[in-house]
């Protein structure tokens, strides 16, 4: 992939992730459990892992979290999204790198979603110095499986289409 093309893809991914972040806020969830989110922007992280290098992935995650602050976020939500986002990206980068030949994109997405929630609970526990907050872990893990699966399927399909486009465009 040429440098210019890479740069354009990174920029597009950051824009897309930011847009998904904003759109997600307007989607009502059927359950009212603190911390449960769709995590649509993780589709972009996943695509970045499949198409770009790990440095680009961390760049995209960091910038999308920073941009989310400008679009109506706050310091606390930034702290959560950046730690959750980077930890989940790290887990997905590592599994893609070392187990990518053996596991499906959906599996990588599930691991990323689970890592995201465990990481966020860890930050929350550190802030309030109370690890009893992990009583939320079971529900959050179940929600991670559901959202992680959806994100994984979306990323798999999008990846197929993107590959075709990149091949035909040269």
């Amino acid at each position, binding site marked *: 992939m040429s440098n210019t093309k890479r740069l354009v893809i990174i920029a597009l991914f950051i824009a897309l992730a930011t847009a998904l972040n904003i759109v997600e806020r307007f989607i009502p969830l059927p359950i009212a*459990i603190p911390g449960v989110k769709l995590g649509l922007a993780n589709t972009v992280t996943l695509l970045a892992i499949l198409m770009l290098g790990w440095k680009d992935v961390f760049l995209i995650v960091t910038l999308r979290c920073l941009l989310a602050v400008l679009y109506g976020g706050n310091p606390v939500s930034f702290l959560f999204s950046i730690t959750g986002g980077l930890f989940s990206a790290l887990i997905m980068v590592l599994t893609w790198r070392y187990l990518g030949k053996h596991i499906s994109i959906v599996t990588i997405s599930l691991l990323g979603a689970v890592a995201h929630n465990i990481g966020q609970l860890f930050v929350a526990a550190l802030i309030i110095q*109370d690890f*009893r*907050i992990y009583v939320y872990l079971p529900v959050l*893990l179940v929600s991670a499986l559901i959202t992680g699966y959806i994100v994984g399927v979306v990323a798999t399909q999008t990846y197929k289409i993107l590959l075709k486009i990149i091949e035909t465009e040269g």
Partner: protein
Amino acid sequence: MNRVNKLIYAILAILIIGSFIGVAVYEQMLKGQAPVAVIYKDKQIFQRVYLTKSINKQINVRDSDGHYNLVEIKDGQVRVKEADCPNKLCIKAGWLNKPGQMAVCIPNRVSVVIEGAAEEAQQPDAHSF
């Protein structure tokens, strides 16, 4: 589906079942004890209130910056009724009535936990620190 994939699914399944069992065991340990709503502010106990049916009160947890969480206690249950935090996750946690349950407000560093008290269960009212 190949072996590695299956292995990862098995690990995830164990993790989830394990977490459910962990929380169930934790709640079981607290069962039978008198439920006490403990409000923490900045890592310290702000107020303890025994959850009995007769207690109806609202506690305003306010700090020097003017940030607040309004905790409501009613019919042996406790919830965060109002708060000025951005995400309102503490309010979303809803009514708590079982020992082990928790509502957390990270921005204001306030948490409401139902703890179990082995003794002094008949104590009628709150004592604050």
